[in-house]
């Protein structure tokens, strides 16, 4: 396979990571909302933890984006 084509294919495959991270972020907010509706009075106190979970899940998706960018522009 042509090296350039392989790079672009790899970058495309890295986009799967972004999709999986979307599942993760949705899971974080979905679970939060589910439990927040069960106990709304406790929800506000957990907002910090919500965003920590969001940040952790999101970072891994962004890493997939970095891999794609490195494949296209650097490698």
């Amino acid at each position: 396979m042509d090296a350039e084509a392989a790079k672009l294919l790899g970058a495309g495959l890295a986009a799967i990571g972004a999709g999986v991270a979307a599942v993760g972020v949705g899971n974080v907010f979905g679970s939060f909302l589910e439990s927040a509706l069960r106990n709304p009075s406790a929800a506000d106190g957990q907002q910090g933890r919500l965003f920590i979970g969001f940040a952790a899940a999101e970072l891994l998706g962004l890493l997939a984006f970095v891999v794609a960018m490195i494949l296209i522009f650097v490698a």
Partner: protein
Amino acid sequence: MATEEGKIDPMYQFEVQTILEGFSLGGQQIAFTNSAVWMLVAVAGLWIFMLGGMKRELVPGRWQMIVETFTGFIDNMMEANIGPAGRKYAPYVFSLFMFILFSNIFGLLPVGVLGLHPFTVTSHLTVTGVLAIMSFSIVLIVGFAKHKLHFFSLFIPHGTPLPMIPFIFIVELLSFLVRPFSLALRLFVAMTAGHILLKVLAGFVINSTNAGAGYGVLVGIPSFALMIGISALELLVAVVQAYVFALLTSLYINDAENLH
């Protein structure tokens, strides 16, 4: 990726351009760039914003209410995450939060209509890296000044079984050392990704409209509608990323201040 004829390069917006040739320092050119301009714009905007809210009126007006909402928000965050000792870090975290917020939002301003090209300062790893290193060094300095070598107990959680201590130590040390990278990378990539997406969609609008009215209606208009939605999402991301940066900084300072 070279710019080909008739192709819109979505990476062009991140190019740092020299505005004023500066001086050279150790073989490196120190110049006044568009990045520096937009940092100054963010600082100036922040200054005006704060100046309008620091009149200390007994009955706060609208402007003072906005400023006090922000300061109160950061103050609460420090209080909740670090405890009473956290209030002395509030000025640093507040400056960090507001600077990131302002540069994120100023980078999204549609001043391109007027011929000015907004430059998102936080879309460069060097800038976010320096911010992350500042936060990380505060953690190290506070940790070692306050707990001396006892700070290393941060890497061994309470109740770790004796044979597990070397492994846990290495894992915790690694996760500690990765922090500045993840902090810098998150902000940089989140801003870069959003701006590339917007420019790619803008390229769709321009190219499809140039290809003919039919393509313009079929591709250009849906792309433009999507751009409006993505712009709203980008505003949300700009705020959330500034918040996450400040939140994680406060959590890391909490580790240094209170161990665990």
